[in-house]
């Protein structure tokens, strides 16, 4: 069967994302990539934890962190993880519309998260907590910013996928792409779980 051919309910495989060798390769390669990303973020977290009390000329963490915003952001991201799970479930049943819909919701939630984060950063900068105000500031913006960058990349990625495949059904060629995005998105959420725990909550109690 041609990998570019639209899948029907009749020939729909158990796991369309892993049905071809290319799909299997992508699937495994992406997981391994996430293993590497774990080390990448660990290095950022380690650096942050090493510097989290070195405020330099900036204000202290407990003075500035805004837990309500962070809480909302967390809820948004968790929900977006759920919607991408729904999308993958739909993918596995060849329900293209539903899948695209859920991914679209995921995208919107991602954008909302980014909006909140930008709002939050602007607020902090006004309080004197900047990238250059001390080692803590540098470490904070680098860690949280790297995560934000990942969210942004995810948003662009899924947007591109949705646009490119609009009007096209699932194929053995594009299923792995959707699936990989969902994995990525979960991973970004995992990182966030640690950010709100280690950065914000622990920062609040010093």
């Amino acid at each position, binding site marked *: 069967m041609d990998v570019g051919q639209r899948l029907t309910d009749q020939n729909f495989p158990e796991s369309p994302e892993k049905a071809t060798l290319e799909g299997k390769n992508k699937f495994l*390669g992406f997981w391994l990539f996430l*293993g590497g990303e774990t080390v990448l973020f660990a290095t950022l977290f380690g*650096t942050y934890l090493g510097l989290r009390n070195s405020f*330099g000329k900036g204000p202290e963490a407990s003075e500035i962190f805004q837990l309500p915003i962070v809480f909302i952001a967390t809820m948004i991201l968790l929900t977006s993880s759920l919607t991408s799970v729904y999308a993958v479930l739909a993918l596995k049943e060849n329900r293209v519309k539903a899948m695209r819909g859920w991914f679209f919701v995921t995208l919107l939630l991602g954008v909302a998260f980014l909006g909140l984060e930008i709002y939050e950063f602007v607020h902090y900068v006004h309080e004197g907590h900047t990238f*250059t105000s*001390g080692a803590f500031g*540098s470490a904070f913006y*680098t860690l949280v910013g790297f995560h934000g960058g990942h969210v942004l990349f995810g948003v662009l990625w899924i947007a591109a996928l949705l646009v*490119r495949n609009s009007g096209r059904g699932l194929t053995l060629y594009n299923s792995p792409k959707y699936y990989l995005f969902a994995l990525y998105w979960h991973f970004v959420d995992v990182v966030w779980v640690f950010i709100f725990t280690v950065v914000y909550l622990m920062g609040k109690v010093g």
Partner: protein
Amino acid sequence: MSNAHAANKSVLWDWLTTVDHKKIGILYLISGGFFFLVGGLEALLIRIQLMGPEMTFLTGDLYNQVLTMHGTTMIFLAAMPIIFAFMNAVVPLQIGARDVAFPFLNSLGFWLFFFGGVLLNLSWFLGGAPDAGWTAYAPLSTQSSGHGVDFYVLGLQISGAGTLMGGINFLVTIINMRAPGMTFMRMPLFTWTAFVTSGLILFAFPALTIGFFLLMFDRIFEANFFDANMGGNAIIWEHIFWIFGHPEVYILILPAFGIISEVVATFAKKRLFGYSAMVFATVLIGFLGFMVWAHHMFTVGLGPVANSIFAVATMAIAIPTGVKIFNWIFTMWGGRNRFTTANLFSVGFIPTFVMGGVTGVMLAAAPADYQYHDSYFVVAHFHYVIVGGLILGLFSGLYYWYPRMFGVMLNETLGKWNFWTFFIGFHLTFFPQHFLGLMGMPRRYFTYPEEFQLGSLNFISTIGAIGMTVGTIIFVINIIVTHAKGEKVSGDPWDGRTLEWAMPNPTPHYNFLQTPLVRGLDALWIEKMAGNKGMTPAEPIGDIHMPNNSILPFVMSLGFFIAGLGFIYINTAGLPALIAVIGGIGIGLVCMFLRSWIDDHGYHIHKEDLLKENKGVDA
């Protein structure tokens, strides 16, 4: 044939767009080889300056630049790419695969490495090279004036990204694309080492990536990670660098171990002694490699508890490494050892590497390292393991696989001259350095006074370096002579044991006409002993799926190269630099987008064409 459209494009275009792992291997080899000459030239300059006391050939900052570029070039731009050259050229063949898992990514990885290397070396012409040592310890590196260290950070960041892709590619290739019957415990040892090395790359390079970002932010965007006055902490960089750095040295040496294992067994006409122990030792070395980095930091002040733990952990690595050494010796034991040039290099490797290894264990005795650290004793240690280990291993691999990669065989007479001059020159250069270190000569010194009596040993060392230069030049001549003659050899000139020798010369671009069926370790040897002409196929002849060539990797890497240049000058060149950054990243993103936008299903070579090409093969 549906790739006919490619045929009428120029040769250059073909090389720029190729996604064939065999060609990418050659690209890696040529660029890595070139950078080896550059790094070697830098080494020569170092040795000339240190030839006698109080020389003024290269002083102060200039010396530091040469030193930094020597270390950096050799490790990142010479050794790593040559290793990747072999991994590309050999691993898919050894496991009976038609290709690597991600041909496009493979090409992208190469071009990123290449442009990163070019960017780094551009610094010579743009105001001075990095000068803070290959380890770039902060805050020296953050305070270093000029743009040298910016080139270091961005050049290596870009080439490092390429390396990471390569690592993932080979992991997936080895896991997913083995031929039927090629179980893990039947894989040739070189493939095993490539596998473990790729794993180390996957987990070590991300730490370095972040390290480079932090350094870049401190230098370019006034962050304060390493600035003590603003609460920063310089030790963080040291940890991050060595969390990457120590695994890196095993990334380098493991493939060399793999090469030695192949070569020694082939020329002894024996199977590798203790194969399972060798595999286990490889994995164990890889694992322990992550637990010992602080042995580079014994004098940093981590305290006696940490020092003791890391000292003992480091010593433990001697055990699996010893297993390898003895297994090689016992592979030769009882064999019919033929000392071709390839085997000479392998055989020369064994005692030399052991000498470097045991000085490593001496260094691992933490308090004794208070004396050795940052002295020429360390320089002697790591050149013994790197030049005496890795480089001899790579030479061995080159002489061994040259017929597979290029279809011609390097000249054996010149090869032997190459070996002996290089080998003797090597010992002459680095053996005296042990004593220099013990006599109190610190490393990274551009000069030393007469009164310290360090002159004569340094002089011997420099003479040795000239010996290595002669060896290298003979090697270059050998290549020229060989290709000028251009005598083709058969596909299996060494009476090989593994799958890469199971196909005709030159290697068809789809590798195996039919995927082979693997029936045990040393798959080809088994068939030969069973009296078969070649491998037993695992499938009938059929259409072969191939990936399309693409120029995107080249353009994308060029984009990041431009962005890198922009970042380097963002604080001094203003608008043009900003344009370069945005433009460069833009180019990169557009390429990524195009890659995702344009459906690329590859093409098929049809059965009929295959049959026409391979007359006489029964389907």
